[in-house]
Structures are given as C-alpha cells and as structure tokens.
C-alpha cells in the first residue's frame, strides 16, 4: 500500500497527474470506498487492501471530463473494462495514468459472514503485500480465522488472468486464483428442466428490489440515461409492479451489455440481495463463445464485437431448441 | 366418403404421392423397362388415382410387371414417383386376404438350383402379404 501512496505522491508532485483515484476507508473495516485524492495531504486517508474490489474503470468516464490526468489503480480484470470503455469512446486514454496493481484475489465479506463470523472489528491478512493465506478476524466474540481462498469473490475463482491489458506502470505481484470453471454454474442451469430453470430464476429474481445497484456499478451499463429511465420505449419505471418487470429489466440489461460485458462481476458483488446476476451475462458470453467464436470483451480495443458482426453461416435461432 | 374416394385417398396415403403434381410429360412411360408388358401405362397411373378408379388399377396386369427399379422415380421431373403408386396398389391387393399374386403351391416348379434366396424373399415381399 505504501508503494502505491509513494508513487501517487511523486506523480502529484511532478505534475504528471492532477488527482489520484483510489480508495479510502469506509465506516467498517471491510468496506473501503472509491475516492479522489488531490494532494499528498489527502493521501493519508488512502487505503488499498483485499476488500478494494470495486472496479474503478467506470469512474474514469467522469474523470475523463476533468482537467488534467487522473492516476487510477486498476486490477488486471479492471483493465478489460477500461479497454472496453476506450473502444466505446467513453474514456480518454490521455486523461488516465493507469497503475496496474497486482492482484491475489479480492475478498467478499458475505462469504466471511456466511461462515458464522459476526461482529467484525478488524481483519488482518487482507493487505496486498501480505503473503498470509489466512485472514485473522477480530470480532466482538473473539478472534476468528478464515482462509483467504474461502473468502474470495466468486469472480476471482474463475479469474480471466492476472495480466493487465492496458497500463502505464505496474506495481505489486499477482497470484493465480483461478480454481473453478467459469461456465460451470451456467452449465448446471442449462442442464435443468424448463420448470426447474423457471423456478430457480423466479426465486432469485423475486428478491430484486430494483435498487439499480447492479446498473450503477456495471462499467458496461454506462449509458447517459438508461432506457428504463427514459420514455423511449414506454418502459420508464421506478419500481416493479409485477413479476415480469424485473425479468424484463435483467434480460434487457444483460442483452444491452452482451458482447461488451467483460465479466467483471461487479453486478453480483454489489447486489444487496445477493442475486447471482453475473449468470445472465455469463450465459451470453458462453453462447457467443460457442456460436460465434471465443470473444473476450476488453481484451483489446479494435476487434469487432459479436453483435456488430456476422457471417453468412451463423447459426439460426432455431439452434436454441435443437441444443436441448 | 364413397368407397372409391376412400380407396383413392388410401392410395395417396400409402404411397405419399400427390398425383396432382403430374404434368403428363410421359417421361415415366418413356423410361419404364416393363412398358410393353403393362396394360395401364406408368403415366396413366396418376389419372386413375385422380379419377378415383382404383378398382381398375388393382386389377391391372401392370401391378405385377413393375420391377420397382425406380427409374421412373429417378427421372420424373415433377417428383410424382409413379413407381410408388404402383407399389401402393400392390399393397392394397396383397393386404386383402387371399389376394396374393404368388401362391405357395406354385413355388416348387419355379425353382432351379442356382436361384438365390434373395429372389424368393423379394418376390414374397412384393407379391404376398
């Protein structure tokens, strides 16, 4: 962490950047929040640890409008999102000074809590420089431990790789965290009967409160104004009035980001109801890979996106029924 | 539905042939190796079905002269398949009890030492139920 702060101070001091986009501590030991720092003084509040899971790429849309460069800390997976935004002309490469930060997996406090660890006061072993495999957690009920791996976000278990796709400099080491198949969960659902699928998604989606957290966190869902907030489709709505609307919302949301979603997993991370929203996006990614050739959004800035591309031999929509 | 009509419908059903597709070009008759032995000629089959005169068709000599060689089926430009119609007529005959064209009694005198099983089997299939 200190290395990041030192580097930030240097770049602020020599005028390379006008501000630093990083994290400051939140009100709890596990909820650091994104923040701007404009001076060495302000950087005393800077934190960076395993709980800094938020994808800062999306903040660069606004930062690109500001005067001067913004120094931003991006994990390997965040750089895919940055690339995708760059491709869509939403961020300005010249306005960003990208520090690619090493990653050994990001933590999910819900996973810790699920292990019965409550009343958390402080957590050790979550700093990026720590080599610790174990989190030591001070709670009001005494000290508890939890393995780092067990506390990791789902997305880190299916990590796309620890290589930064775009950066100005890199700080910190990464550690491979992938130990699960990316599409295993999608395949599990695909194998269900229609009734089971329907029951599964109905039960998951009935939890949706339309708080729009998924939309707000998603770097691909970055429209100036969402169709669900405009009158362009007579679809403007504030709250769900029936069971259909959340389905509509989530399907359309997934469709709008299809071929653009980098599978960063922010939607699921921020959902207060714990809905595995990434399963929608990942279904589209799987379909695209299978039908139109493997495609990773954000891997580069010049490939043709699958939904703006075609071949004469493309599968017919009837393939959906034939695949069984 | 009259019985003639019913029989004609059955013919179409069994054969899967739509006789209305025929444009009466005569290519089937031009092709048929058994043409001279037939009383009702291949190109006429469709008319009998359209006119619902199945009676004449099932009583015709042609039924037992067709070789099922599919030359007419192959060359028909209208995808009518007269050979299938004939076979359907044959089916209608042999499906009626006692209407077999080949009787068990007559077999021994038809045999000779070289005659392959295949011939008997095929003939049975085509001529008997």
């Amino acid at each position, binding site marked *: 962490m200190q290395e990041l702060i030192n580097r930030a101070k240097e770049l602020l001091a020599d005028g390379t950047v006008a501000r630093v986009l990083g994290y400051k501590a939140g009100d709890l030991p596990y909820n650091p929040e994104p923040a701007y720092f404009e001076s060495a003084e302000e950087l005393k509040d800077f934190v960076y640890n395993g709980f800094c899971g938020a994808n800062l790429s999306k903040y660069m849309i606004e930062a690109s409008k500001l005067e001067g460069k913004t120094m931003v800390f991006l994990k390997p997976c965040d750089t895919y999102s940055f690339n995708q935004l760059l491709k869509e002309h939403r961020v300005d490469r010249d306005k960003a000074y990208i520090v690619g930060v090493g990653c050994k997996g990001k933590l999910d406090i819900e996973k810790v809590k699920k292990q019965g660890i409550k009343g958390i006061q402080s957590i050790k072993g979550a700093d990026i420089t720590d080599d610790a495999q174990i989190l030591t957690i001070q709670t009001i009920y005494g000290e508890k431990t939890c393995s780092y791996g067990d506390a990791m976000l789902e997305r880190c278990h299916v990590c796309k790789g620890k290589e930064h796709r775009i950066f100005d400099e890199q700080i910190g080491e990464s550690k491979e965290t992938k130990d699960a198949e990316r599409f295993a969960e999608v395949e599990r659902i695909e194998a269900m009967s229609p009734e089971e699928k329907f029951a599964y998604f109905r039960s998951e989606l009935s939890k949706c409160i339309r708080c729009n957290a998924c939309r707000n966190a998603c770097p691909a869902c970055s429209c100036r104004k969402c169709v669900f907030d405009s009158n362009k489709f007579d679809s403007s709505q504030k709250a769900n009035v029936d069971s259909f609307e959340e389905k509509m919302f989530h399907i359309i949301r997934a469709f709008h980001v299809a071929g653009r979603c980098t599978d960063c997993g922010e939607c699921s991370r921020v959902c207060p109801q714990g809905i595995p929203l990434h399963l929608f996006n990942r279904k589209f990614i799987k379909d695209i890979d299978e039908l139109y050739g493997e495609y990773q959004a954000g891997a580069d800035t010049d490939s043709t996106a699958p939904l703006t591309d075609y071949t004469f031999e493309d599968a017919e929509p009837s393939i959906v029924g034939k695949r069984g | 539905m009259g019985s003639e009509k019913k029989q004609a419908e059955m013919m179409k059903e069994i054969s899967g042939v739509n006789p209305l597709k025929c444009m009466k070009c005569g290519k089937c008759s031009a092709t048929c*190796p058994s043409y001279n032995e037939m009383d009702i000629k291949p190109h006429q089959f469709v008319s009998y079905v359209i006119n619902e005169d199945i009676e004449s068709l099932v009583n015709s000599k042609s039924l037992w002269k067709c070789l099922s060689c599919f030359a007419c089926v192959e060359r028909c430009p209208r995808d009518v398949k007269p050979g299938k119609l004939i076979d359907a007529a044959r089916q209608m005959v042999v499906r009626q009890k006692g209407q077999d064209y080949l009787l068990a009694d007559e077999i021994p005198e038809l045999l000779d030492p070289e005659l392959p099983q295949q011939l008997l089997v*095929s003939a049975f*299939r085509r001529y008997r139920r």
Partner: protein
Amino acid sequence: MKYSYYPGCTLRTKAKNLDAYARVSANALGIDLEEIEDWQCCGGVYPLGSDEIATKLSSVRALHAAKEKGQSLVTMCSACHHVIKRVNDDMKNVEDIRTRANNYMELPEPYAGETEVLHFLEVLRDKIGFDELKKKVVNPLAGKKIGAYYGCLLLRPSKLLSFDDPENPTIIEDFIRALGAEPVIYPYRNECCGGYISLKEKEMSKNMCEKIMESAEGFGAGMLITACPLCLYNLNKSTGARLPVVYFTELLAEALGVKEEAEKEVQA
C-alpha cells in the same frame, strides 16, 4: 478400420463366394468386418408403402446393433444395401416411422438413424481410396475389358442412396481401373435386369438381360461384374452366360492375390 458387417441371406447360401472374396480381401486391406450378431434377412425389397413398419424392423435391428458398437454398417449385396440404407433414412427423417418402430422394438435407447450405412464399394472409394487400393494390388488385371453392371438398387433413388450419379455412375469403373483392368462404359449398365420378376415372368427378365448383354458386348466388354446375387443370377440364367458375370469381390480378391484363400474358405 473396424466396421459392423451385414452379409444378408444370399451371401450365406447361393452367394457364399461374394461374401468370402469380400472378407478375405477386406483382411488384406486391413479392414475389419465384424459380422453383427443374429442378423435377420432384410426382406430383399424396400417396402414402398409409407405406412409399413413390420417389414422394416430387421433392418432397424441391424442398424441399432452397429450403433451400439459405434461402428458404420457395411453391406455387400445391392439389395441389402438398398433396403437398409432407405430404412435408415426413414428412421432419421420420418417421424411417424421412427416413433412406431421404436415403440415396437422397445430398445434401451430409441434408434434415430445414427448409423452410417456403407456399401463395401463405398468403403473402398471413400475410406480406403482407389489410389490406395491401386497400391495394394499385387496381381493387376491388365488387359481385361470389364463392364460394370450397376443395376437399379445401388443407384436409385439417388437422393436417398447418394451412392453415385444415377445416370452416369463411375464408382465401379474407377474400381476396375484401380485393379489394373479397363472399364467398358455402356449405356445399359444402370438399367434393371428384371429383379424379382424373373420368378414368374422369365421372358421379361430375359429380354432385359439380353439388351444389357448386347450393349456391353457391343462396346467391347469381355465380362461383367456386379454386386448383386439376383442380377448375377438373372444375367447368367436368361442369356445363357453370353458374357461371364462375376462378383466385384472376386476380381478384388484376384487382384489382391488372395483369391485362392477365399476359394478354400468357400469349399470348407
């Protein structure tokens, strides 16, 4: 190369040599023909009535047996090939027949036309390749002028059998060339010999066979080859063996130098 093999009734009786020459030649070519167990006669003719089921079941059994082994099904006799290939097509594409046949058969897993049906000639052309075959010939049949007699069953209906061009086939001619002999092309090679009609209408069949023979002879053929025991019988019977007619496998065995081996087997 392992295949399921369906010999058919006549190859175990009057056409033992068609079978023996084929098996011995297959061995020489490194083709493993595994005879399927408890096969039943195919019926000899394909039941044209679109509502026929019972007469198709023996073919379905053979096809299913090959599917169980994960092998293609190889046929030798033109008639068996015709019947089995067409029944297979029904099982693949005609829902009504598929459903009814499967209901009747009560197979552990329904059969839906998965098996590939190959005539032995197709194996030679598409799996071995005539160029390869040519390399394996030890006893080229040089100087022989041979007419291919296709008959009707292998070629038609061409869309279903997809064996060769129904009006101008080349597979047996290419086969003859591979064996080192010279094919004689004559227009009657795809005309019917009369087939089963020879049982009751000997005169008709005779006329047809005469036309075939005359045409082949006229174009200079010294012998005819065929894949069908019934064609062979009709051609021999009706024309008093004007030209010798033999099975294609006999020439194959001869060219591969294994003819005697096969003949011993037939004797035994």
